């Protein structure tokens, strides 16, 4: 099992969700997040005064998938979330040792 954490633009959430459901991903967790990558945010003007905003609004998706589905899921996310401009986000992948369904104690991939 693999865990995918994807930080994406909030405006791309629906497209990414649809793409993942289409390839058979069943569960995911979504969190409203703030952050920045290399570009360090942008500037805003209020009555002529300049403020630099370096923590931009993002959405973080977390999903755990079977090993064989990992590549397809990553492709689905990158394709759906890409605008080609700075700030499109990042994907992090990590190994998951165990998954447990609370309702009936099922373990492993069947619990996904």
């Amino acid at each position, binding site marked *: 099992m693999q865990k995918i954490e994807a930080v994406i633009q909030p405006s791309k959430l629906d497209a990414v969700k649809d793409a993942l459901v289409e390839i058979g991903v069943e569960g995911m967790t979504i969190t409203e997040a703030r952050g920045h990558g290399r570009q360090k945010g942008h500037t*805003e*003007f*209020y*009555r*002529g*005064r300049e*403020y*630099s905003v370096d923590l931009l609004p993002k959405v973080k998706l977390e999903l755990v998938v079977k090993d064989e589905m990992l590549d397809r899921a990553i492709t689905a996310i990158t394709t759906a979330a890409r605008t080609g401009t700075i700030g499109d986000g990042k994907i992090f992948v990590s190994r998951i040792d165990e998954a447990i369904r609370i309702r009936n104690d099922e373990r492993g991939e069947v619990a996904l």
Partner: protein
Amino acid sequence: MRLRAAKVFLSFLFLLIFGGSVLCGSVAMAQTPATAQTDRIAALEKRADENAAAIAAAQTAGDNGWMLVSAALVLMMSGPGLALFYGGLVRKKNILGTMMQTFAMMAVITVLWGLLTYSLAFSSGNAFIGGLHNVFLHGVGLAPDKAYAGTIPLQTFMIYQMMFAIITPALITGAFAERMKFSAMLVFMVLWSIFIYSPMAHMVWGQGGFLNATGRFPCLDFAGGTVVHVTSGVSALVTAIYLGKRIGYPKVPMPPHSVVLSFIGACMLWVGWFGFNAGSALSAGTLATSAFVATQFGAAAAVIGWTAVEWIRQGKPSALGAISGAVAGLVAITPAAGFVSPMSALWIGLIAGAFCFTMVAKVKSWFGYDDSLDAFGVHGAGGTLGALLTGIFANSAINPIFGPGKATGLFEGNWRQLFHQAFGVGLAWTISIVGTLIILFVVDKTMGLRVSEEDERVGLDLSQHGEEGYDWAH
């Protein structure tokens, strides 16, 4: 058989009524002609008197209706309008503290006005301040007072003017937002209302006032450019400088926490301003229409003026810029509203929008004072500009205030008016600077003006009122 009897009876009845009325008529006609004529003239005179009374009553009812609505509109400018406008501009830990300052004015100044300040502003006194004839609203009844407004109850005039007395100190709160003690703010405002607002209102609008249109230096101020915006704006600047900058200003970013709230507040200010300006006609007649129209054109043009300069300089037309421009235009058109044509209003608004943007975005940072919400940049600067432009654009065709056919503004050839306007504004600046400094000094030395450093960091909501505007945990 019965039917015929009924017909005969009805015919008889008809003949009786008809014949009787003809007979009575002829008897009446047969009276002596001289008596009849006198009676008829008396009846006509009586009817004419009744008609005049009915017309006067209708005019009073119409004027009174508009003035009561106007009074409510002006209160709406404080209540939701200014409170939301200022509330959105501060950081979120200060929203309730900021809104509470305006709300407190609605309560405190109302009571003070009834007890004392209405009398100081509008009862007869000397050229600079009214007397004590109307303290506790003594003599302020439901009959009109010819000196102020001949067609509305004096109480309507009193309550309408009260709304101005409320919003004026509330405007100042924008300059010292996020750092003044609530208790000190209350004492400061009561003293300010007594020693600065009341004399200014008396000088400009009061009977026998020094700057009244019939006074020594006729200063045109239709709805409060000098009385409301210059006094509040300049006092705001003095207070901001006296109090010092907020902790971290200008290094720590302090952007508005909700431009949405400010947006709603500004829209309410714009709507309420019709009560402010068109209501200042003190009647529901053509002058109210003229002021209403000028107000709309002034505000709209100022949105364009502010936004255009901002767009050129910053590259984007911001929502905060657009609403700030509207307020700047409304401020600048306030003294001119009842004296200028719609096209003059357009020019006043356009100039005010561009000018106030420059004051707020450039001049403030050159001098480095921390006028938190730009009370001076918008009201002080916009009010001063508007008062001067009134002297230029005022038109006797709109309002022959100096008599029919007599030139009013500079463009009509009355260059003296510009001088009078400048004199009035200069006097308002002087009184505001000196008076505010004295009041600030007294309050500072007796109870302290500013919250402690820790309280300022925590925010006014918690430190002054023990509550939070936004409770994220629940």
